[in-house]
């Protein structure tokens, strides 16, 4: 997943968490980058008409941005579910974050042929918990 798609996904999730435009601070926290980097990328995404930015409020995805973010989130869900259910990785959330930049959506699509994913995916992704609400996770936050 490329950097732009990771940003779109983060904006999508931040908008869900904040129930409104995504603030630079929240995006910087989610992406673990500086606010200056966030502002720079928001500017680029705005030029590509994927994001609208309102001063002092934050970033909102356009319809095209939502579609791209939705696909990116679905790719991420596949990676998480694959790690949790096929490779039985306990700390699948941390590892999915570390791997998402290296796993392309075509690769995720192939991995998707061996996992059982709910039809409503990725709408069942819990933005606060950072994983699918249907994924079975133990009390320690790791996959059972």
């Amino acid at each position, binding site marked *: 997943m490329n*950097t732009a798609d*990771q940003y779109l996904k*983060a904006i999508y999730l931040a908008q869900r968490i904040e129930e409104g435009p995504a603030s630079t601070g929240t995006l910087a926290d*989610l*992406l*673990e*980058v500086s606010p200056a980097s966030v502002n720079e990328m928001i500017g680029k995404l705005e030029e590509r008409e994927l994001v609208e930015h309102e001063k002092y409020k934050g970033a909102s995805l356009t319809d095209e941005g939502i579609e791209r973010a939705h696909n990116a989130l679905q790719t991420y869900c596949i990676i998480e579910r*694959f*790690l949790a259910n*096929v*490779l039985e*990785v306990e700390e699948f959330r941390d*590892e999915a*974050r*570390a*791997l*998402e*930049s*290296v*796993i*392309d959506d*075509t*690769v995720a*699509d*192939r*991995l998707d*042929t*061996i*996992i*059982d994913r709910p039809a409503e995916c990725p709408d069942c992704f819990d933005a606060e918990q950072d994983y699918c609400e249907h994924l079975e996770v133990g009390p320690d936050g790791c996959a059972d």
Partner: protein
Amino acid sequence: MSLGQRVSSDHQLARLLQIGVVLEEVVESRAAHHLETLPPSEQAAVDEAVRELLTEAAEESAEHRERLEALIDDLDAETVAYEEINALVDAQYGPPEDTDGVLYDQLANEETAYKFYDDLIDAIEASDAEYAIDRDRLLETLYDIREEEKEGVEEVTEIMEHRA
């Protein structure tokens, strides 16, 4: 979240190689399933070139898997057994309707594998991390496999063009 393609640790490298093994297992299993599950009328229509392609693809995937497993062993990690992946393919498998469907699936297999190794090589080359396995050996193995996946894409494309 990790921005930028870079393989920064043995753990991350082992995990990516494990994913490579699973992709190879999926290719191997799907090729075998295609040959077994086509309706008899279609099986008769699968000409020798297609049958040979699927058999060779399964053999090549098994060989790639072994080469990746040797690297993973040296990183002290484990792989998922072929039988387990075969069972997962079996559970979700929907057979293509005809030979063209089989060829499209095979093309997607080869293209996906090529893309995976290409991205993995870029991510290793972008990192200056020292791994527990020799970097040259790692990259040479991955270059070889990527080249064979590229040839695989060309072979499927040729057969598809020939049939068109």
